[in-house]
């Protein structure tokens, strides 16, 4: 009989949960099902592990790529599942085993009814492999590779030779919802990715200034939302026009405060959008001191308009190169660096205020109709699901 491949999935921190582990496991399983739904397969679970089986061999890379985006997965292995029978186990081990180098067989025997103990199984299978492949040697301390045998209680054995890392973190959906302010740059998708990693379901909010910005800028943001989507089990992108707000600030307020005042509008809009849709916090890609508006004074000014929700800034202590590294790893970097202007650069002052005092900001803001502008901006909202 042809032996079939199996993908073994092990979860990470869910182990720490006790009474509500079932809740976490259920969400975790749904998330795995969601990313794999386009590829025929069977997902089963037993004793805290998940097995993907009954798939076509040519789909294996697609399955692994999809699973690498599922938070909560600690490690994965590709192996074979066979009947717990020494000949069957040997056949699977021989198929997986390399032709040369040093190796060690490691056995885990959950099935205590099996006649041999784990040491005896390792020795027997190792001996047969050694006899069959003449360029192999045994090294029990620092082998080049391992052959793992896992005899399960259901009378089957999993045979595999590698562990590779999953995305880690917690299953998305177990830690509430956040609204990510997605600009089109490098930082914000990374911030969304990091919150999704902790189990948060992330939605996105983008501000544009058409006609001062172009449609490519918006398409770029849509691309970024699409990249973020599998990590966060689907995301909704909200787009709001801040054109008129920028024009009003430009007309009536101090030039150096353009960015500061605009950001206060953005945070106000974000909080309203979040509250209207049952989203519990705001997420930004700010990193302390990266640009003039991301000083502690800048953050104070933005935070002071957010009344109820926490503002999470997962990148606050990161260097740019650390952020870039993460952006590349999640596959957003090449899109993020496309040269389309987002809404911040059009009316950019020559010298933005770096440490504006709150009194000064509020006095300048009093020159414009904040609530009228907010209401008008919220009417421009568009939604796209990814």
């Amino acid at each position, binding site marked *: 009989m042809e032996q079939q491949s199996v993908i073994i999935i092990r979860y990470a921190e869910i182990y720490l949960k006790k009474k509500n582990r079932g809740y976490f496991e259920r969400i975790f399983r749904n998330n795995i099902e969601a990313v794999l739904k386009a590829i025929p397969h069977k997902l089963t679970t037993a004793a805290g592990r998940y097995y993907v089986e009954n798939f076509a061999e040519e789909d294996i890379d697609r399955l692994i790529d999809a699973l690498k985006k599922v938070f909560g997965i600690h490690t994965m292995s590709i192996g074979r599942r066979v009947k717990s029978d020494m000949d069957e186990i040997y056949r699977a081990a021989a198929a997986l085993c390399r032709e040369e180098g040093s190796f060690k067989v490691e056995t885990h025997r959950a099935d205590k009814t099996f006649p041999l103990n784990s040491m005896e199984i390792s020795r027997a299978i190792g001996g047969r492999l050694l006899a069959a492949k003449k360029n192999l040697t045994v090294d029990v301390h620092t082998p080049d590779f391992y052959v793992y045998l896992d005899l399960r209680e259901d009378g089957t054995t999993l045979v595999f030779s590698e562990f590779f890392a999953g995305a880690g973190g917690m299953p998305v959906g177990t830690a509430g919802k956040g609204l990510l302010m997605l600009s089109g740059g490098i930082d914000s998708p990374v911030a969304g990715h990091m919150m999704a990693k902790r189990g948060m379901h992330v939605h996105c909010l983008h501000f544009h200034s*058409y*006609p001062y910005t*172009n449609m*490519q800028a918006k398409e770029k943001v849509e691309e970024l939302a699409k990249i973020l989507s599998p990590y966060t089990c689907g995301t909704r992108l909200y787009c709001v026009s801040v054109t008129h707000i920028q024009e009003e600030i*430009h*007309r009536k307020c101090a030039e150096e405060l353009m960015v500061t005042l605009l950001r206060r509008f953005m945070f106000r809009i974000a909080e309203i959008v979040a509250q209207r849709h049952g989203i519990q916090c705001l997420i930004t890609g700010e990193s302390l001191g990266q640009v003039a508006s991301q000083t502690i004074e800048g953050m104070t000014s933005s935070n002071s308009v957010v009344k109820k929700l926490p503002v999470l800034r997962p990148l606050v202590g990161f260097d740019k190169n650390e952020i870039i590294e993460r952006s590349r790893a999640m596959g957003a970097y090449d899109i993020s660096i496309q*040269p389309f202007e987002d809404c911040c650069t059009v009316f950019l002052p020559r010298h933005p205020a770096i440490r504006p005092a709150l009194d000064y900001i509020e006095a300048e803001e009093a020159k414009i109709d904040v609530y009228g502008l907010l209401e008008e901006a919220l009417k421009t909202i568009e939604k796209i699901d990814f």
Partner: protein
Amino acid sequence: MKIYLDNAATTRPNGRAVQRAMRWTEERWFNPSGLYREGLEVRADLKEARTYLCSRLGDPAEISLVFTACGSEADNQALFSFARRGNLVISGGEHAAIFAAASELKNRGIELRVAPLNGDGSVNEEGLLSLVDDKTSLVSVIHVNNETGAVNDVNALAAAVKKRNPRLYFHSDGVQAFGKIPYKLGAAVDLYSVSAHKIGGLKGVGGLFARKKAYSVLHPYIYGGGQEDGKRSGTENTFGIMQFRFAAEAKFAALAEDYARIKGYRDSLREGLDQSIFTSVSPENGTPYILTVSAQGLRGETLLHLLDDNGLIVGTGSACSSNVKKRYSRVILACGRTEAEADGILRISFSPETTADEVASAIKILNGCAAELKKRMNL
């Protein structure tokens, strides 16, 4: 219906020419390289199209034509074929197809010399001549500048540069000229690139005209089955070529009449635009098909979006390069314009389909949107 005034980017395909080519292709769909009767018939039709198109530029006995996939390919083939040693001289007003190909040749060790422009975008003749020496292998000067509409007298320029070095070859990019302005290929112009979709043809068809001597040494750019006399392999785009031929026939038949009518449109547009906002960059004696203006203090692209929302389609600079990171047009800056002027560039371009009513509406929309934007930006 929106008003379309970005015809230098592309034109609507000539519908009658599409239908004629459609009927033709239903019968004559065979491979022109086929050795059976049907193949020979297709080949004969292509030959007739080739001869017809050559005859628009001069004596078809003296001029050959290689069909390519676009004007850019024709430009590239000319440069990579003839700028193989010594130095290559181009003007600062070349289309990206020449400029980028020349930059690549420079990377490969060919000395690149770029001639300065006059304020209107035409090449400075003295500057050009001073760059030519006995090591020059190719000179390439655009016929009608695609960004300003300035017309270079390429026949005279070719003759002048050849006085300095009779062995060099002279190429001109005629994409914005062919079928639009009266022109016969000068004796000193060896190579001339054209594109179908600027005169009612389809995207996917271009051509490189070559005088006999240049043709005999023209290298292929695409190698393969030896189509197009070995100068451009790949099965010919027969439908596209025939449609180009039919569209050109219509365009050339009305060339003089269109020229005069469109010149009227351009002049009335130039006069109708609010002079306190728009300055004309295009020269008076340029092609009537293009009017380039700079909107003071405004960004061309922002204005373009507003115009788009108000039913008018225009261009900003060269559409082929507007998504490149560099914000300002290399050609507009080479004309001696400031960055602020380059920022506000709009290119308005006509076709024979343009009507006087459309031009009148366009004036209103342009003035209205520019005034609105100025107000919104508090200028």
